[in-house]
C-alpha cells in the first residue's frame, strides 16, 4: 500500500483527568492513515470518534500518545511558526454547517481567512480571484462571495465549509460528520464533491460519521470505535462482509436498508461487553487476524478468530 501520511500511536484523550469524573474519551488507540485514502471512523455518539479527530488536529492537547504527520509529531513542542506550517497541511470540515460559519462575515472573508493567516495572497485582487476559484471548485459561483452565510441552504453552506478547508491547499482533511445535518438528496451531492476533490487533488480524508452506508461508500478502510477504544479496523468491503468483533456485528445488524424484503428477514444482534469473559492478566490488543484486518481481542480470541477466518477461505 501507499506510504503512511499519518501515524497515531497510543493516543489518549482524558477529560477531567485525575478527578472523580474523569472521562476517557479516547483510550489508547493506534492506527495509520495512508496517503490518498479515506479512512472512515464510525461508532455511537459518545464513543470518542469526534474527539479522536479533534485530538489529531490538535484542537485538544492529547493526554498522552503521538500523532505523527509526515514524520513529525503534531503534539510535540512546537514554536508558533512550526505550528502554522503544520496547520496548513491539515484542515477540518465540521458537522453543523449552520454553526461553523461566522454569521457576521461575508463568504469572501470566511474563505480567505486561511489565506490571510498564512499570507498566501499578495494583494486584494489575488485574494478575491483565489476565493472565486475556490467557490467554483465546490460548485458555487463567484457572485456568492459577497453574501452572508444565512443566504445559503444547508448543502451550500457545507460547500462553503469545504471551500474554506481547501483554501490553504491541505494534504489531509478531517471531515467530522459533514453530511449528518443534510437532507438525503443533498448528502449525495456533498459526498460526490468530496470524492471528486480527492481524485483531483490527491487528498487524504478522515471521515467521521455514524451513517454506516455512506461511510462504506466513501471509505477505503473503516475503523469502528466503542467506548474510547478502536475495536476493529479493516478494508471497507471486508468489514461489511466479514465483521469479526461482536460489537461491529451488532452495529451492522442494526442498520435498516431501503429494501423491504431484506428488512423482513433482518435479525438484529445485540452486544454485551461481558460476553468476552476476559480473565485477569489477559492482554487485550489490536491483532491482525487476516492481512489488513485488525480486531481488538485477547490472545485466546485471536486464535479462534484466526481458525474461523482460515476455515472461511
Amino acid at each position, binding site marked *: 500500500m501507499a506510504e503512511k501520511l499519518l501515524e497515531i500511536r497510543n493516543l489518549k484523550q482524558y477529560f477531567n483527568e485525575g478527578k472523580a469524573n474523569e472521562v476517557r474519551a479516547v483510550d489508547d488507540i493506534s492506527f495509520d492513515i495512508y496517503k490518498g485514502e479515506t479512512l472512515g471512523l464510525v461508532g*455511537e455518539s459518545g464513543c470518542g470518534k469526534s474527539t479522536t479527530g479533534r485530538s489529531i488536529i490538535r484542537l485538544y492537547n492529547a493526554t498522552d500518545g503521538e500523532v505523527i504527520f509526515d514524520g513529525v509529531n503534531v503534539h510535540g513542542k512546537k514554536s508558533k511558526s512550526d505550528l502554522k506550517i503544520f496547520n496548513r497541511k491539515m484542515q477540518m470540515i465540521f458537522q453543523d454547517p449552520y454553526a461553523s460559519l461566522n454569521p457576521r462575515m461575508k463568504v469572501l472573508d470566511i474563505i480567505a481567512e486561511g489565506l490571510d493567516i498564512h499570507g498566501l495572497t499578495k494583494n486584494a485582487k489575488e485574494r478575491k480571484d483565489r476565493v472565486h476559484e475556490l467557490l467554483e471548485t465546490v460548485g458555487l459561483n463567484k457572485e456568492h462571495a459577497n453574501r452572508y452565510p444565512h443566504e445559503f441552504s444547508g448543502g451550500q453552506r457545507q460547500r462553503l465549509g469545504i471551500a474554506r478547508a481547501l483554501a490553504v491547499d491541505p494534504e489531509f482533511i478531517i471531515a467530522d460528520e459533514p453530511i449528518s445535518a443534510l437532507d438525503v438528496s443533498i448528502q449525495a451531492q456533498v*459526498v460526490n464533491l468530496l470524492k471528486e476533490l480527492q481524485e483531483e487533488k490527491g487528498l487524504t480524508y478522515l471521515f467521521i460519521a455514524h451513517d454506516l452506508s455512506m461511510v462504506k461508500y466513501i471509505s477505503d478502510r473503516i475503523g469502528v470505535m466503542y467506548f474510547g477504544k478502536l475495536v476493529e479496523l479493516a478494508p471497507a468491503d471486508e468489514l461489511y462482509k466479514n465483521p469479526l468483533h461482536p460489537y461491529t456485528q451488532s452495529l451492522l445488524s*442494526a442498520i*435498516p436498508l431501503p429494501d*423491504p424484503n431484506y*428488512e423482513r428477514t433482518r435479525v438484529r444482534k445485540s452486544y454485551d461487553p461481558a460476553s468476552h469473559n476476559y480473565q485477569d492478566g489477559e492482554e487485550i490488543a489490536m491483532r491482525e487476524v487476516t492481512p489488513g484486518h485488525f480486531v481488538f481481542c485477547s490472545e485466546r480470541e485471536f486464535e479462534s478468530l484466526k481458525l474461523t477466518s482460515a476455515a472461511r477461505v
Partner: protein
Amino acid sequence: MEKILEVKDLQLSFHTFAGEVKAIRGVNFDLQKGETLAIVGESGSGKSVTTKAIMRLLPESSSEFKSGQILFNGKDLTKLSDKEMQKIRGKDISMIFQDPMTSLNPTMTIGRQITEPLLKHQKVGKTEAKKIAIDLLRMVGMPKPELRIKQYPHQFSGGQRQRIVIAIALACNPQILIADEPTTALDVTIQAQILELMKDLQKKIDTSIIFITHDLGVVANVADRVAVMYGGRIVEMGTVDEIFYNPQHPYTWGLLSSMPSLDSADEKLYAIPGTPPDLLDPPKGDAFALRSDFALAIDLEQAPPVFQVSDTHYAATWLLHPDAPQVEPPAAIVERMKKFPGSRYYEGVAR
C-alpha cells in the same frame, strides 16, 4: 379494513412577511386501522406540516386552512374548536416528536409527565394514574420503573427519553400515533430498539401509526404503505413493496438511487441536482420538473394529475400518461423493478 383517518384535498398556507407560503398544496390520503403509513420527503416538502395540521398544532395567527377536510372517525378536525380539539389531542391522536431532549419538560418528574394525559383525559385518581404510569414504563422497557418515575429527564439517556415520550403518547391508548422522525436523533443501535418497541406496541394495542422520516431504510423496516411528498404534494403513494420495487415518479427514483446500498460498487452516487422548490412561488407545473432528468415539456406547463398504477398505488407524473414516451429509469431502479412481479422489468421464475 377500516378507515380511521381521511385527508381530503388539504391545502394550507402560512402568512409570512415575504408573502404566502403554500406549504401544502392539495394532499389526499387515508389511514387504515392498525397500519403504519410512512411519509417521506426532504425538509420543506410538507410532511411535518401535514401531521401538525392533523394535530392542529400550527399557530393560528399565521397559518390558514385554504380548503379540504381532515376526517377523523367522520369528524372534520379542521372545523373543531380549541376545546373540542383538546379532547382529541393526546387521547385519540397523540404524537412523538423528533428530539427527546427538548420534548420533555426538564422541570417535571417523568412520573408527572406520564400521568398528565391520564389525569386530563381519563377518569382516574392520582394513585391509579401512577400505577398505570409504572406499567407504561415497564411496557416500553424501562428497568426499575418504580424508582425512575421520580426522576427528571436529565437523568435519562437519549434512547430512554424517547421511550418515555412513547410512554406518554401511548398513555391513553390512542387510535392514531403520529411519530415525527422519532429516531433521527438516535444512534443506529438505539434506533433499532425503538423501532422494535414501536412495532411490538402497535401489535398489542392495535393503533395506527403515521411515521415521518427521511431515512428510507427505516421506511422499509416499519411501513405498510408509503407516501412520498415533494413540494407540498404527495407525488407517489403505494404499499411498501410498490414504492421500493416498482417506483414510478422520477423523484422517488432520485431518492432511492441517492442512497448507497451496502453492496454497491464504486460507481458514482446519484445526486438529485438543485434544491427544493420555493413554496412562496411554487412552480407552475410539476414542482420536481426543474430537477428531473425525465421532465417532459408539459411538466413545465401543467401539474400532472394522479395516475393509478394499481388499486393501492398511484403517482402524479406525466410519464404515466398513455401518450408519454416510454423512458428507461436509472439503472439502480431497474435493478429494483426486476424483483417486482407486474413491472415490465420483472425477472420472475415464470421466464
